[in-house]
């Protein structure tokens, strides 16, 4: 049946939410405006920049290219879900701090979420694989070098390669 308002139940960073939304509400706007989780950034809103990347059922996707009703029944993770509740950073975040992998930080949440899934799938990733995996995330500050180094460090800490 056609609906102008849709009820959505979703789990974001382990917490249940149930909201009634207009179907045109982009998932990125739902996360930022309705849930107040502004760590997910919005750059281009057409899938190119990667700033809005989140995990849906553990897979990285563009939050700006999903309508909120499509999250119904799915589990979402945003950058706010990375650190422990006591504030202890995720090893990826730790590596970005250690290697100075960010400057303004606009691209960082999208990169962290992309890399979390990537390292889980490629625990021994090489530098070439890391660079290719980063190709869907634009950074206008760093020149990427320190991002690559941060991810390499995170791979060695999480995945155990050198």
């Amino acid at each position, binding site marked *: 049946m056609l609906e102008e308002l849709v009820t959505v139940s979703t789990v974001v960073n382990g917490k249940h939410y149930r909201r009634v939304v207009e179907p045109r509400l982009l998932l990125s706007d739902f996360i930022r405006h309705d849930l107040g989780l502004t760590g997910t950034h919005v750059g281009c809103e057409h899938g190119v920049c*990667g700033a809005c990347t989140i995990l849906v059922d553990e897979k990285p996707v563009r939050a700006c290219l999903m309508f909120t009703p499509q999250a119904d029944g799915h589990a979402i993770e945003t950058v706010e879900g990375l650190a422990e509740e006591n504030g202890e950073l995720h090893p990826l975040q730790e590596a970005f701090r250690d290697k100075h992998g960010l400057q303004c930080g606009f691209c960082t949440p999208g990169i962290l979420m992309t890399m979390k899934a990537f390292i889980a799938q490629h625990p021994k990733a090489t530098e070439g694989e890391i660079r290719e995996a980063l190709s869907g995330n634009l950074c206008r500050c760093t020149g990427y070098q320190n991002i690559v180094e941060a991810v390499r460090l995170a791979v060695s800490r999480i995945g155990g390669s050198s």
Partner: protein
Amino acid sequence: MKPAPFRYAAPRSIEELLALKAEHGDDAKFLAGGQSLIPTMNFRLAQPAVLLDLNTLPDQNFIVETSSGGVRIGALVRHSDIETSETIARSHPLAHEAIRFVAHPQIRNRGTLCGNLAHADPASEMPAVMLALGGRFHARSAASDRWIDASDFFLSIFTTALEENEMLCEVEMPPLPPGSGTCFLEVSRRPGDFAMMGVATVVSLDEAGRCAEARIAYCSAGETPLLAPGVAASLAGEEPDETALLNAARQAAEEIDPPGNVHLTSAYQKHLVAVLTGRALRTAFARANTSASQ
């Protein structure tokens, strides 16, 4: 950069979906991966009144081998499912090789093969792959049910043979001919970008090691993906040595006449046609040799 309002349905069966489409016709659009549709809606280049979401359909995420050795791919199979499918890697390495050139991992996790083919962007990789493989497309509406050959499917830029209310519900890739080898190559400005030029080749060898058959298809070469039947005809019966490959490359650049675009001239695209055709054929024949000697 926000989409215009629309009414939304997430049907639980194909029948319900097709009935809604029949009722709303041109006002309604199918929403598959959304990786082409949502950007155009965000720009308000598209403002459909009704969106019919395919993502809640059961049983459409199938990749199955047919009894003849072909493979059928359902409407909700994502690019990333094809990337990780061992069945496809084994049976149709061309599709497996090409899918990694489609966009970025994040886009491949949502975008569907059927949505990509229905969208019919001439710069897209998979339409050319389907032409080279001789794929067949299963189209259904509330009132019709038919198969369309890949060679009849792509009519123009963003235009296919699908009628207004037809949904592409599956694609079938026939088995590769015996003794065959395939190769996909492209040049793009950055990894994940649409191709500046791309070529998909399927070749097979006869028992004497001569080319039995070749199919060579290009993306970004015109308003639709294009085959080069002239090059294929010249190769048939020939021994695929360096001379034959160089001739094929030269002939391809005459047969294919790309329009050029804001990023590159037609002449440069022609140069890419020649270079990529030669390289892709060389690799495909080498792979055909390996598969023949196994």
